Every structure is written in structure tokens, then in C-alpha cells.
């Protein structure tokens, strides 16, 4: 039972990370680093919340989250691709801006409420029949809609990246943009699309926290999970299946650390448990660096003239 609960929680926690990480994957595969992931997730959580609040419909909220994520993906694109601002800087700038902006606008809209402002959130969706399967049913088929979307995005991402011309172009832009250019495609357009898809998925991932996991918006709602998603891309070796594994590991590790907390554990200080995903990422980076499987032009602006 403990194991089932643990795995179910892990699968659940991994969902939004997975969405965000796949978003980052698109961006990085076109050669741009999106350090603004954290801020864009926050924006998504905010946008989803506000839209749902005013429309009463979480599906519209989802749409709002995606749109606002795209908007800031676009902004990061303008900075990093068109203006060729260093990609680390542009991402940091976006994070700083969004952490202030979302909370400020929350204040503008909701003032200073004593009780948390809540919205009508997504309910868990147990998939008929499948969720009745013993063990697996509870682990896999009793989650929020967004979590199912997350796992469906994995084969989709794989298919797009490796089986379509768009994916081939994306991968080429991240490896050697000049080739894409000489093949008559626009590196700029591809990179923008990577950024915008990345933003959209970041927004979607963020909305999970304000529309499914919780039904409120708060300043710490993302709490560094954008960076975890960022790490999962590396840990997952820049491919969708690897990222799936990476986020599952992070999700299960997270669920495990919570269970350690409630079990009254005294052996390992809690802080060390919290460190583990980061340390895992560092170790994974070490393992993968030798093989240098990262997109070769990742982080390098493309200059045509």
C-alpha cells in the first residue's frame, strides 16, 4: 500500500515537471536555453488562476495559462533570439520581472483578502475501467487531467522531434543553425517556435499548481520547480523518454521525502533529502558530459551577417 501510494504520488508530482521539461526540451533543441522557465511557470499559474476566476471554467483557465506562457516565451525570444541578449541574462530578467509582476497584479485584482481567493479547480479524473485495475489503476489512472496530458505529451514530443520535418529542423537548428539557414529554413523562426512552445508548456505546467494541485495562487507556488524541470532536461539527456524517466525519479524522490517527513524519521536530516534531486542532477551532468549529447549550439546566438 505504501508503495502504491508512493508511486501514485510520484507519478502525479512528476506530471507538471514533465510538461515543463518537455517545453524546455523544445526550446533547447532549437538551441536556446530558457532559464526563464521558472518565471513562465509562475505566469502560467497566475494566468490560469485569474482566467478561471473570471470565467469559472478551468478549461478556459488552462487556455489562459498557455497563452500567457506563450507571451513570455515570445518575450524571451525577442530578447535572446532577435536582440541576441545572453540567454542566461534574458532568462534571469524574465524570472525577476515575473516574480514581481504576478504578485503585484494579484494584489491589484484581489486586494488584501483575509481568506484565500479560490477557484473551481479540476477534479481528479479516474479513468473508467483502467482505474479499477489493481495496483496499476491507482498508480496510473487516477489523476488530474493535466497529468494525463503530461504523459501523452511524451510520445507526441518524440514523434514530433524524430519523425517529422519540423522536428528535424528543430534538432538541426540546435546542432548547427547555419545548416538550417542554408537549407532555406529560418533559424529565427524555428527558435521562436521553440521558445513559444516552451512558454506554452511552461504555462500549462504552472497552471497545474493553481488549477489542479491547489486552487489558489500564491507567490511561492512554483518554488524552484522550474529549475528542476530545467535539470530534468539535462538528466534526461535531451530526449523525451529520458526526460520522462528523469521527472519520474524527481517526482518519486519528492514523494518519498514527504513521506520521510511524516514518518517521523530521525536518521537523515530533512534538508539532505531535499538536496537529493539537485545532487542527482549534478551526478547525471557528470555522466552525460563526456558523451556531449547536448545540442551543439545550445546557448549560442546565431549570427547570419
Amino acid at each position, binding site marked *: 500500500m505504501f508503495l502504491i501510494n508512493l508511486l501514485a504520488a510520484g507519478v502525479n508530482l512528476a506530471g507538471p515537471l514533465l510538461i515543463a521539461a518537455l517545453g524546455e526540451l523544445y526550446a533547447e533543441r532549437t538551441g536556446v536555453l530558457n532559464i526563464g522557465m521558472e518565471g513562465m511557470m509562475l505566469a502560467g499559474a497566475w494566468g490560469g488562476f485569474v482566467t478561471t476566476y473570471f470565467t469559472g471554467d478551468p478549461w478556459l483557465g488552462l487556455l489562459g495559462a498557455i497563452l500567457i506562457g506563450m507571451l513570455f516565451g515570445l518575450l524571451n525570444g525577442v530578447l535572446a533570439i532577435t536582440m541576441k541578449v545572453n540567454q542566461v541574462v534574458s532568462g534571469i530578467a524574465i524570472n525577476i520581472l515575473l516574480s514581481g509582476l504576478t504578485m503585484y497584479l494579484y494584489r491589484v485584482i484581489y486586494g488584501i483578502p483575509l481568506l484565500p481567493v479560490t477557484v473551481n479547480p479540476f477534479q481528479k479524473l479516474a479513468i473508467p475501467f483502467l482505474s479499477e485495475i489493481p495496483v496499476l489503476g491507482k498508480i496510473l489512472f487516477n489523476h488530474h487531467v493535466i497529468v494525463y496530458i503530461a504523459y501523452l505529451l511524451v510520445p507526441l514530443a518524440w514523434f514530433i522531434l524524430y519523425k517529422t520535418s519540423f522536428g528535424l529542423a528543430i534538432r*538541426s537548428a540546435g546542432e548547427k543553425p547555419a545548416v538550417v539557414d542554408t537549407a532555406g529554413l529560418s533559424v529565427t523562426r524555428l527558435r521562436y517556435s521553440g521558445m513559444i512552445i516552451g512558454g506554452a508548456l511552461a504555462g500549462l505546467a504552472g497552471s497545474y499548481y493553481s488549477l489542479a494541485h491547489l486552487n489558489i495562487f500564491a507567490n511561492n507556488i512554483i518554488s524552484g520547480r522550474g529549475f528542476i524541470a530545467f535539470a530534468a532536461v539535462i538528466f534526461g539527456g535531451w530526449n523525451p523518454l529520458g526526460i520522462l524517466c528523469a521527472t519520474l525519479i524527481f517526482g518519486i524522490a519528492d514523494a518519498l521525502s514527504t513521506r520521510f517527513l511524516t514518518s517521523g524519521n530521525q536518521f537523515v536530516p530533512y534538508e539532505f533529502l531535499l538536496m537529493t534531486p539537485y545532487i542527482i542532477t549534478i551526478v547525471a551532468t557528470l555522466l552525460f558530459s563526456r558523451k556531449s549529447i547536448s545540442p551543439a549550439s545550445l546557448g549560442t546566438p546565431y549570427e547570419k551577417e
Partner: protein
Amino acid sequence: MVEQAVPFVAMKGITKYFTNVKANDGVSIDVRHGEILAILGENGAGKTTLMNILYGLYAPSAGQIFIDGSEVAIASPKDAIAKGIGMVHQHFMLVPSHSIVENIILGMDENRGILRLKQEAAKIGRLAAELGFEIDPYRKVKELPVGVQQRVEILKAIYRGARLLIMDEPTAVLTPQEIQELFKLLRNFIRSGNAAVLITHKLNEVMSIADRVTVLRDGRFIRTVAKAETHEAELAQMMVGREIALKVENRRDVGAARPAEDPPLLRMEQVTVRDAHGHPSLNRLSLELRAGEIMGIAGVSGNGQEELAEVLAGLRPVSQGRIELNGRAMSAGSAQTMIRNRIGFIPADRQSMGLILNLSIRENLLLKSYDRPPFFRNGLLRKERTVANAERLIAAYNIKAPDGETLARNLSGGHQQKVVIARELSLDPELVIAFQPTRGLDIGAINYVHQLLLEARAAGKAVLLISTELPEIFTLADRIGVIYQGAILKTLAIAAATVDEIGLLMAGVDRREEAAR
């Protein structure tokens, strides 16, 4: 060749400004159906820029382009491809980690949507066979030798329906045999009314394959002549704007090699170097080099030249064998040791290895002196000395720059190479390794570099000249060694060597041995 009323492609009055240069200035050229047009010019004359404009990579600041007589707008390579223009760039435009088929179909309209790799691979295989070579479309590009990569490039252009094939310095990376095969391919290609533009620095190639020649200088159009009505010396003169020798005069009697009884300056014995997979890229290579001589290492590229150069530069560890300098064994494997042992090194790739483009000339000149006097003492920089040093060398080597603070990036290729050579020689080496020292340079610059190497020999230094250019070796070297599959197959005095024999040796055939057998 029949005169045609309407040329295939015509560029008229093309002008192109970059941020700080005018790369093309009212250039007009035309290419006719069924011909090979060569474009000649010194480094920076604007050849590549002009072709990049034709291919849609750059937008011209002014000028028009006509195809079969009607004006066209080429806003991007997509337009160019659609109009039957293909280009093989100097630096290959292939994604190393992707397969051949992926590289070829990238961006093709016919392949929008879901990829049909199998189908395309089969088609590509067929086309390759038609062109007379065989490839495995699923191989990754990074696993292919340069020659094959170039074929993939050509295949890519033709597969996309190129009728005009632009080739930017295609021969710089090829072996003589490969060059011949390439030319054969080009001749086949134009037979059906297609055309090709060939950019090169090698006049002999122009004379052997081009139908007409266009010369650019300083971004301006100079003249277009039919090959039949010109000769190398005239072309050279058009390029540089004045009379110029086609090659340096090598007076082998000045500072000739010391008597053979002298102990060699450098001795390599049975040196083996293994690559990442454990294959020997140098396979028990032995050679000897004496002070005051230039030894040329000829060979088809990929036979261990790079490894040989890097071993002597201390950039590659030796797994077996012995290297002696002045009779003392030394351990290779660190660039620092080699520099301390007074081995100078002129790398093939000046821009990414020989220089730091974003440092000034002055700082590039101290690149190897960072840990010793006179420019650094106790770890502190002594700036006045470095300034004086830069002034002295800029004057001595005729480097075209306002002062030592000019960034290396802002120099032309030839002058960049001069900075490298100035630095290496100013460290007073006993041994100079020159690895493809004139790659990509124009005639004037080549002559200057050759001059400097001859002067180094005259000053009693030993020079190991590793080059894939046979003419270069025949001009400069006193002895010639042929490298084949990681070992020196044979060493000959230059007087006793013929181009034919060396060519065969490069292919691994030792005629005398065969005769003996």
C-alpha cells in the same frame, strides 16, 4: 563553347556593405549554361560574399540578379534552391550528428510533415550511384571522412534540383586524387547544360577545369577572361594588381643542410598514437630532421598528418615510441614542454588555434610567453616591453595594422598568419612545425609565408613542413617524406623525387619495392 545570347545567371552591379566593410562594390558576373566559371581573388576580395548573395544568404545592398534573362528576387536560400541554385560552402553545411539522409532532406518542401526516411534514403542511394559513387544514407555525417562529406554536400545540392552548383574552395580539403574525381564529377554535371561556379586560390586548378575566369579584387570586379586566352601569370597579376612571382625562389645552396653525420635535431622512433577507439593513427612512425633543413611531409590527408603535428605540438599523448630532441629523449604530451624545448608550431587552423581573434596583435604575440620573462616577471605583466615587441614585429613582418592594439579579428587571413609566424619565430625555436601553413591563403600571402619559412631555414632552424599541397613541398623542401597510414613510407631527397612517384607513394604504392619483388 558557343556564345550564348542569354546567360544562365547574371549578377549586375552587386554591392554589399557589412558593418565595417564594403565587401562587394558594383560587381557584375555572368554564368552560362554548360560552363564552369572560376572566381579568383585574394583573401577578402569578396568571392564568398558574392556567392552567398546569389544563394540568398545575404541581401545585397544594391544590384540585380537575372536568371535566364529575367530578373529575380532571391530573398533566402529557399528561393535560390527553387531556382536551381545549389551551393557547397567552404565549411560544410552538414549537421554532424545527423544521418546523411536527414541532412539531405532537411528543409525540402517535398518532405514536409511526417518524414519518409526509407523512401528518401533509397532515392538518395540511387542518385549517388548515378553520380558514380556509393554511400550508406543512414551513416552519421560525423563518421565520414571530409572527402565523402563533400560528396554528400554535392549530392544534397543536386538532389534539390541544382542546375547551378557553386563550390567555395572545394579543393582545399581534398587529396589530389579526390580533386581529380571532383573535377570529373563537375564535368559530368555541366554536360547537360548545367553550370558550376568554382572559387579557388589554385591557379593550376583554374587552368585545368574552368571555361572562363572572373577576377575580383578589393570587392571590385576586375575582368572576366576565357581560360584559353590567359595564363597563370596574368591571372595572378590581375588578382593582386601588380606583377607577382608565381612562387618563391628557393636557393637551396644558402644555408643548406648540415652534413649528414651531424646528429639529427629531431628523431622520432617507432612513435605510435592511438585514437579514441584504440586504432593507431600514427603507427610506428620514424623520422629524422636536421638543423638547417626543411623536410616536407606529403600525404593524403587523414593519414596521420594531424596527429604527427599535434604530437610535436604536445597536444596529443604518445602511446609508444621515442622522441629525441638534440639526442635527448623527451616526453611529449604537454604543449608547455614542447614550447620550452624550443619547438615552434604553425597550426593549420590559425583562427581557432593559432590566434585568439578577440585579443590584440600585441597580446597574441605573447600568447606563449605568459609564464616567463621578458614580458612577465614574477607573474606580473610588463606592458611597455610588450608594446615595443609588438611594434618591432609588426614592422619586421610587414603586418598591415595601425598598431599593436588592433584586434587579430580585424586582420585579413594572410596577415593573421603573419602574426602567428612572427610569434613562433620570435621565440627563437630550433624546430618549426608548419602544418598546412598556407591553407586558404592567396598567392601573395602564400609567397610571403614561404619566404619566411625559407628564411627560418637559412637561420639554421629545422622546419617540418606537413602539407597536402605537393607543389608547396616541392618548392620548399630539401627532403620529402611520404606519410601513409600513420607511418613514413619513404623519404627521398627532393632532387631525386618526381611528382608521379610521390603521388603513387601517397596512395601507398612503393614502385621500387614492387620492382624488387
